[in-house]
């Protein structure tokens, strides 16, 4: 069979015929993919799987390319030519009806290949220092063998201490942080002082910052150190979760007002757009979303468009500060609860010995590959036990089949079923152990009472009782972060604390957890998480004043000055308008959830997800004017011009919605979106700057360490 090739030289020439290219390359044979760059590879592999073309071997160029300048000229000469030789019957094979999630493993490959390239930029043996929080993401896309294969000798974690390496070449794989760069400067300068010569390379991920380079220059080592960027923007954590793994995004942007990650977010979107797009609709709310959209749009404009079939049709961008209430609620959906208690790190959790009922902890990947987990991750915790015990019974039955089997049946059983059963057994016992352990922990700290307080706060019911509950929580020096969480929830739902309460609670908090938390309170205030009610000014006056400023574009600077005032959460009014808090007297059957509120035991529909639902339903913000006004505006909805793909494809990709959370999202929100997806026949892909939860969010506000 003659194989059809499309060669796309992205950012170089547009469409090329493979044959043309082949002629230019000596010795290359048809049937071997020749890839100029990875974006082209992506297009081709996507195209190949579409057409079920099996003969293509997607490889990077293997034939010796003797006359490259000539090829370059040739290729340049073809600029603007769009050729596509068609043959073979499978050019447009039948597509499946249900929207399938795009394959995101491609993103991992892109990242891995680029890393290898970067490592090769420092030829020879070298020691690699890796920033602590880059280690897990790195683990997801490469392993030690990969690194060793590319001359990495020893691996170290960046610990901001003097180093012991004896290697002549040091490579640093880091986030663009001043602190880490400072440490590298110290390392290099210490070497210099010792008269020791080494070669140094810093690989910044996902990008470098001028401030870092400036520091290198100031420390007199610019030039001694080479720098590079590893554009590892997106790490797929699961079939439907992609993370930028930038937990500092939240603090940097929302607290410090630093927009350094805006372009990063735009670039991440751009990558997704060029691989899985073109997107046809973009909705969004929040200042950062707007800026990220702009940045992405500019990058699209700068680059080239590729005519390919969209796998993702719609995009929804949302700022975390549009809804700060949701991430501060206790999570009660299984995956969220596991995250709250054991902390899922980069899709992996470490179960302690009391879960594993052995003497050592086990690291477990939690994703859709884990069949047991996949079935319970979105369930309310109260449903999980029942499910697990049913599952255990089934397993027992399956095992019991053995009795009464003859040798032959037994053989089949062992070869075909046993492995699966054993696997299931292992997973089952892990999750049962985890559930038990969580149950124990939660009963110990009077979880029910805590949840009751939270629900009261959400409903705006018995606030005085809530305050004394929080007070006692503080007085007894129970978990500091938990106390802070409750205080913030109180402030967000009540639009700030009464000055008297604020003073008294702050005082008690400082007494219980340390006076240096003055700094934390100042941060929480700055961000609008924990504020005093402004006496004298009614809400409506504030709103209209701020609203006016927001709408007036010329007053952009002023808007910012007022942004802290504008951070009123208006939670009660929003709750009423969007029906976020169902009436508490109604029974809520958690077995058969009727809406997204099930993720909070039926007490609250997450604002973030409700907005997404409403906007998708209305195909825009029409009718939500009052809501957006209360959310401080910055909403948008943009539609692309027609993009030529046929209607059926369009509807397929239209039903896949990419939701990007700027500042992090919780597993509960992801569960809610999965529920929404099932209800509406949609598929959601969550892209987030990081997976967050109340503890992570609040810990990022702490300033109490040197």
């Amino acid at each position, binding site marked *: 069979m003659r194989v059809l090739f499309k060669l796309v030289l992205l950012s170089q020439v547009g469409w090329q015929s493979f044959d043309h290219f082949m002629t230019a390359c000596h010795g290359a044979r048809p049937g071997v993919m020749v890839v100029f760059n990875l974006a082209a590879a992506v297009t081709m592999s996507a195209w190949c799987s579409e057409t079920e073309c099996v003969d293509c071997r997607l490889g990077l160029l293997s034939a010796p390319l003797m006359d*490259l300048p000539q090829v370059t000229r040739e290729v340049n000469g073809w600029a603007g030519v769009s050729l596509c030789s068609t043959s073979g019957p499978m050019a447009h094979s039948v597509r499946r009806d249900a929207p399938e999630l795009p394959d995101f493993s491609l993103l991992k490959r892109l990242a891995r290949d680029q890393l290898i390239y970067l490592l*090769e930029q420092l030829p020879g043996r070298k020691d690699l220092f890796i920033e602590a929080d880059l280690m897990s993401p790195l683990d997801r896309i490469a392993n030690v063998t990969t690194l060793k294969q590319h001359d990495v000798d020893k691996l170290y974690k960046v610990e901001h201490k003097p180093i012991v390496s004896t290697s002549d070449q040091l490579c640093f794989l880091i986030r663009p942080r001043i602190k880490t760069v400072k440490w590298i400067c110290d390392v290099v300068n210490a070497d210099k002082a010792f008269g020791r010569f080494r070669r140094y390379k810093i690989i910044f991920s996902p990008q470098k*910052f001028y401030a870092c380079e400036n520091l290198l220059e100031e420390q007199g080592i610019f030039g001694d150190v080479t720098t*590079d960027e590893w554009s590892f923007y997106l790490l797929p954590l699961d079939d439907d979760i992609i993370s930028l793994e930038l937990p500092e995004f939240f603090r940097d942007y929302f607290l410090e007002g630093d927009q350094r990650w805006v372009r990063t977010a735009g670039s991440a979107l751009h990558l997704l757009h060029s691989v899985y797009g073109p997107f046809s609709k973009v909705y969004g709310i929040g200042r950062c979303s707007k800026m990220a959209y702009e940045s992405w749009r500019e*990058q699209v404009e700068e680059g080239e468009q590729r005519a390919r079939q969209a796998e993702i049709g719609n995009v929804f961008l949302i700022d975390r500060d549009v809804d700060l209430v949701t991430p501060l609620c206790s999570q009660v959906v299984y995956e969220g609860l596991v995250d709250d208690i054991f902390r899922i790190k980069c899709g992996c959790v470490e179960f302690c010995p009391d879960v594993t009922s052995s003497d050592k902890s086990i690291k477990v990947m939690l994703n859709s590959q884990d069949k047991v987990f996949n079935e319970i991750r979105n369930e309310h915790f109260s449903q999980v036990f029942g499910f697990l015990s049913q599952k255990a019974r089934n397993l027992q039955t399956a095992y019991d089949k053995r009795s009464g089997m003859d040798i032959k049946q037994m053989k089949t059983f062992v070869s075909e079923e046993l492995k699966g059963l054993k696997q299931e057994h292992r997973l089952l016992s892990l999750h049962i152990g985890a559930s038990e352990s969580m149950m124990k922990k939660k009963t110990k700290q009077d979880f029910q009472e805590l949840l009751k307080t939270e629900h009261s706060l959400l409903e705006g019911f018995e606030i005085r009782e809530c305050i004394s509950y929080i007070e006692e929580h503080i007085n007894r020096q129970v978990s500091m972060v938990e106390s802070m969480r409750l205080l913030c929830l109180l402030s967000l739902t009540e639009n700030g604390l009464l000055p008297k309460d604020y003073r008294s609670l702050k005082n008690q908090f400082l*007494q219980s957890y340390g006076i240096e938390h003055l700094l934390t309170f100042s941060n929480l205030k700055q961000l609008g998480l924990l504020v005093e009610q402004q006496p004298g000014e009614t809400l409506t006056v504030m709103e209209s004043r701020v609203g006016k400023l927001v709408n007036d574009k010329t007053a952009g600077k002023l808007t910012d000055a007022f942004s802290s005032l504008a951070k009123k959460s208006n939670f009660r009014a929003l709750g009423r308008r969007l029906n976020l808090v169902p009436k508490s007297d109604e029974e809520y059957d958690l077995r058969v959830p009727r809406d997204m509120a099930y993720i909070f035991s039926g007490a609250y529909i997450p604002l973030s997800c409700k907005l997404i639902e409403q906007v998708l339903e209305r195909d825009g913000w029409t009718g939500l004017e009052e809501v957006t006004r209360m959310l401080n505006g910055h909403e948008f909805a943009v539609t692309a011009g027609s993009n030529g793909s046929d209607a059926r494809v369009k509807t397929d990709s239209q039903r896949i919605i990419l939701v990007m959370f700027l500042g992090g999202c919780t597993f509960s929100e992801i569960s809610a979106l999965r529920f929404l997806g099932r209800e509406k026949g949609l598929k959601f892909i969550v892209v987030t700057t990081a997976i967050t939860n109340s503890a992570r969010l609040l810990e990022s506000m702490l300033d109490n360490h040197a």
Partner: protein
Amino acid sequence: MIRGKPDEDDYWNNSKFKAFTFDDEDDDFTRLKESKRAVNSIRSLVEEEDEEDDVEKVSWSGEPVGSISWSVKETESSIRSTGEVRDQSFPKIHTAPSLPKNSSGYSLSSLFKGKAKTGSFQSFSESFGDPSIRNYAPELRKPKSEYKDYVSDWTPEETVKRMQQGKVYSLEKFRSLQDKLLLLDEAVNAHDGNVITAVLIYLKKSLSKEILFRELITREIALRHYIHYLKEIGEQKLLVELFKSMDRTEDMALMQYRDHLNVRDENKRRDFLKNCLSFPFSPDDATHVQDHYTLLERQIIIEANDKQVESSGQADIFKKYPRKASILNMPIITTLYYSCFYHYGESDGTFSSPANIRKTFRISDKQFLLTCLGARAKLKAWFDVDALFTTKNWLGYTKKRSPIGFHRIVDILQKNNAPVQVLQDYVNLVEDVEQKISLAQKYKCHDVIINTYRDLKDRQQLIVYRGKVERSSSEYRKIEEILSNSQLRWKN
């Protein structure tokens, strides 16, 4: 690593971020010289590379073509941003920005195009302009001979764009205040924090701080970037001046206060905190900082004393319960707990006594009780626990009172493993009968349950309960006794 690199380094070192002090008297002169040198170095670079053009192309294939290195390089360039690397045949651009060699690579047309400002969103169709025209047009517009003028040609908008794309740029030409501010505003308009900070670094070096501060007052976004940058590089002093000049005295005070965390030695830290007392905190915060100072001062005294007592082996309490950690830098409540644990019953006059701590730090009754209760219960000093709640009225009768519900007290006692005899006294004090029974059941205070049912004259419940206790137990006998008491008038 790649040929031509030294040139770039020259360029960067000479021109861009030369170390610069504000105190420099003849900074204008230095800067002039600097800029001149920069321009010169650029020119030579341009010319050199111009000639190199063809050679460069060859060197692209210098690496063995089959290697991953070669192919992934392509990858890298395409991923970074498909737009910026149209000239990807020149790998230099990946490591550090270099000057243009092939004009087609710098799609200037995109810069000339009317740029959509924030807020107005171009439709996709508009932004997907015909690439082939857009990308190759500049080649016609800018013949190679004009390269030398590039540097001075870039408008603020172009400069910012180039910085965003990681291309070579030059800030030296932005010399008048107006130009500098235009550049800054353009960076802010581009929403790229990285570029905003880069411009601010340049302004920091090339403007006196008074002027820079003055201009930042009206530029909130830039100001926040500047503050964050100064925080990150640890330029405390400048930050203090900045806050001062903006009358943000509370921010200034807090920021200086924050520094105490960096002082390890407790005596120095105490002195530092003492120094903080004069900072312009808000009235509330001033009280807290005063407390912080007083607290550490006390802790140092207590720590020195207790350490000595402990090592000398004089006091039983330290022998029985050796201290697990020093009390230094612990919160007030922890200090109170410590004091209730090791220094209970000391006279009010001593710094380490609970009463003194309570008074000094204005600890509420509720809080005091909770902490004290926890400490005494931990020591199983049930007599002290009792005394906490006992009040005498004017007739001399004693009565137990508590500022917090007795169900909470029971909870705390239970968590400290109080024996049933102690627990039931407090369960009995719980007012709500249902709560009392449920607590009693939870903690197996049989007497309380039995007595409560008796008082409620609830025969049925008592019978039910009889079934729950062991036949041979004293509880069983007691229930039997009550049930057979003919004096009682049962309600059921």
